[in-house]
C-alpha cells in the first residue's frame, strides 16, 4: 500500500506529544494539578518522550517515498506513466 504507516504514526505522536509538552510547560509548578500524579509533571515528561518517538517514526517513514504498490501495477497506470503529461 502506498502510504507508509510510520508517517501518520509519527505525525499523531508529534501532535499529541507536542500538545502535552506545551501544556506541561505552561502548567509547570502547578502543584494542585500534579497532586494526582504524585508531584510528577506527567504532561511534560511523557509529552517529550512521545514527541521524540513521533519524530523518529516520521523520519524513518519519510525516507521511504510514497509509492504505488510495485507488485501489482495496473495496465492503465503503466500506460499513463509512459505518456508525457501536459
Amino acid at each position, binding site marked *: *500500500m*502506498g*502510504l507508509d*504507516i510510520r508517517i*501518520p*504514526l509519527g*505525525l*499523531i*505522536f508529534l*501532535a*499529541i506529544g507536542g*500538545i*502535552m509538552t506545551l*501544556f*506541561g510547560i505552561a*502548567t509547570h509548578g502547578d502543584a494542585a*494539578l*500534579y497532586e*494526582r*500524579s*504524585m508531584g*510528577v509533571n*506527567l*504532561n511534560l515528561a*511523557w*509529552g517529550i518522550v*512521545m514527541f521524540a*518517538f513521533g519524530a523518529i517514526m516520521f523520519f524513518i517513514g519519510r525516507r521511504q517515498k510514497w509509492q*504505488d*504498490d510495485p*507488485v*501489482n501495477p*495496473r495496465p492503465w497506470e503503466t500506460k499513463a506513466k509512459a505518456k508525457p503529461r501536459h
Partner: protein
Amino acid sequence: MTLTYIDWLIMLVYFAFVLGIGFALKRYMRTSNDFFLAGRSIPAWVCGLAFISANLGAQEVIGMGASGAKYGILTSHFYWIGAIPAMCFVGIFMMPFYYGSKARSVPEYLRLRFDEKTRALNAFSFAFMTIFSSGISMYAMALLIQRLGLFHGIVPDAYVFHVSIVLSAVIVLGYIFLGGLTSAIYNEVLQFFLIVAGFLPLVWIGLRNVGGWSGIRHTLPATMTQSWHGMAHASTNTLGVEWVGLTMGLGFVLSFGYWCTDFLVVQRAMAADSELSARRVPLIAAIPKMFFPFLVILPGLIAVSIGSHASATAAGTPTAAVMPLDQQHPHGIIPQKIDPITAQPVLDANGVPVYDYDLAIPTMLLHFFPTGMLGLGLTALLASFMSGMAGNVTAFNTVWTYDIYQAYINKRASDAHYLWMGRMATIGGIVLSIGAAYLATSFNNIMDALQLVFAFVNAPLFATFLLGMFWKRTTGHGAFSGLVAGTFGALVHHGLTIPAGYAPGIHGGWLNIVHTYPSDMAQNFWTAIFAFTINLLVTVGVSIASEPRPEPELVGLVYSLTPKPVEEHLEWYQKPATLALAVLGMLVILNLVFA
C-alpha cells in the same frame, strides 16, 4: 468527571487521524482484493501489531483489568498459556496453508479443503460471532462513557448511551468504508502504540504509589500475585479451575481454536506481503502480547492494592471462610457497583456490597492522571474499543461478501460489484452490531460471555482444522458432521452443568443439572474440551466411513502432500522456527518469574 479543553483536543487529534487514514487510503481501494485483503502488500511487523490490536478490544482492556483486580496475576494465563503457544503454532504450521492456498478467507479454505456445506456452516456462525463481538465492544464503550460522565453537560444524560453508540459506529464505519482492511490495520497499529503510550505511565505511577511489585506482594494474598499458586485444585485458586482444565481447556482448545482458526486475526496475517511474512506475523505479535499483562492486568492489581495495607484483616475475619475466594482481598479504589435504576449500591445475597471490577482501569486513569495525560489515557481506551469493533467489522464484510454473497447469492458479478458489496456489508455489519450492543446488556462480565460464545463456535472448530490440515484422510462429510456434533455437544454440556452459585438459565443447567463446576470459568473450559473431543471423534469416524478425496486435489491444503516452505536462503536466525523458539523460551521465563 470534568474534562478540560486540552483533553478534548487530544481526543480530537486522534479522531482526525483515524478518519484521515481512511481518506488517505481511499485512492488505493480499486479492487476487492485491495479492500478485503489490503492487496496482500503489508509488511510483517505492521500485520503483527494489527494481529494483536484487533484482539485488543473492550473485552481485553476492561475485562483483563477487571479480572486482574478480581483474580490477580492468574489472569495473565489468558495471555501466556491462552495465546502464545497457539500463536507460535499458527505461524509455523498453519500459515503456509492459509496463505499458500490463496484462499481469501478462513471459510474459503474450508471449501477448498472440504466442501461447500462445511464452508457455509463456518461462514454463517463466524458472521454471527463477529457481529456479536463488535456489538459488545460498542456496548462496553457506550456504558463506560455513560458511567464516566464523559459527555456530561454536552449531551443530556438520558441520551449519552445512544449518542456514544452512534458516534463510535459512524467513526468506525467511516474509516473502514473508505480504506477497507488496510485502513483497519493501520488504525490498529496507531491504537497499539496509543495503548502503550497511555498505559505505561499509568503502570509506572501506580507502582510508585503502592511501593512497586514487592509492595503489591506484601498487600495482596499469595493467590493473587503468583500465577501458578493453588492451581493443583479448583478450590484453592481464585479462578476456580484446576491445572488440567486450564491447560487443556484454555491453553489448548479455546486458545488454538481462537488464534489458529478465527478469521478476525488470521485475516491480518493473510494481508502480509509474502508467505514468509505471513508466517512471521503471529510470531512478531506474540512478543508484545507476552508483555501486555503488565499493561492491562497490572493496573487492576494496583487498583486493589492502593490504600489497603491490611491483607491480614480479610484473612483473619471469621467470615473469610464463607466468602468466595475472590472476595477475600482488599478492594483498594474499586468503586461499589451502583444499580443504574435505583442509584443504590448493589448488595449480594449476604448483604455484602458488590464491587464493580469493570471500572478498575478507568478508575485508575481518573485517580492518577492529571488533565492532559487524562485525555491521552481516555484516547487509548476509546481507541481499543474502536479497533475491537473494526477488527470484527472487516472480518464480517469479507466473509459476507466472499463466502455468503459471492458463494450463494450472486456468483458471477464483476469485481467492482463485490467491492461495492463490501462497502455495503460494512454498513450492514455496523447496523447489526448496534442491534447486538442493545442485546448485550443482559451479560454481567463481558469476558465470560465472550468465552461462552467462543466455546460453542470455536472450540469444536480447531479439531476440524487440525484433522483437515494434518490428516489427508479427513473428508468433507466428516468435517461437517464433526462440527455440528461438536457445537451440539457444547450446547448439551452447557445445558447439563452449572457453575456453583448460579440459578439454572443463561449460566447453564437449563436441561438438567448433572454436574456443578466450582466457577463459570471452569464450566467454559470444560465445555470447550467436550466440544473439541466430540468433534474429533465424530470427524474421524465419519471420515473413515466416507469416500476420501483424490490426493492430487489436496496438494497445498494438507501437510503431508504439500512441499515444505523453502527456507534455504534464510540464515538460521531469520527462520520463523527460530523466532518461535525464542518466543516460547521467553514464555517459560515469564512463567517461572511469576510462578
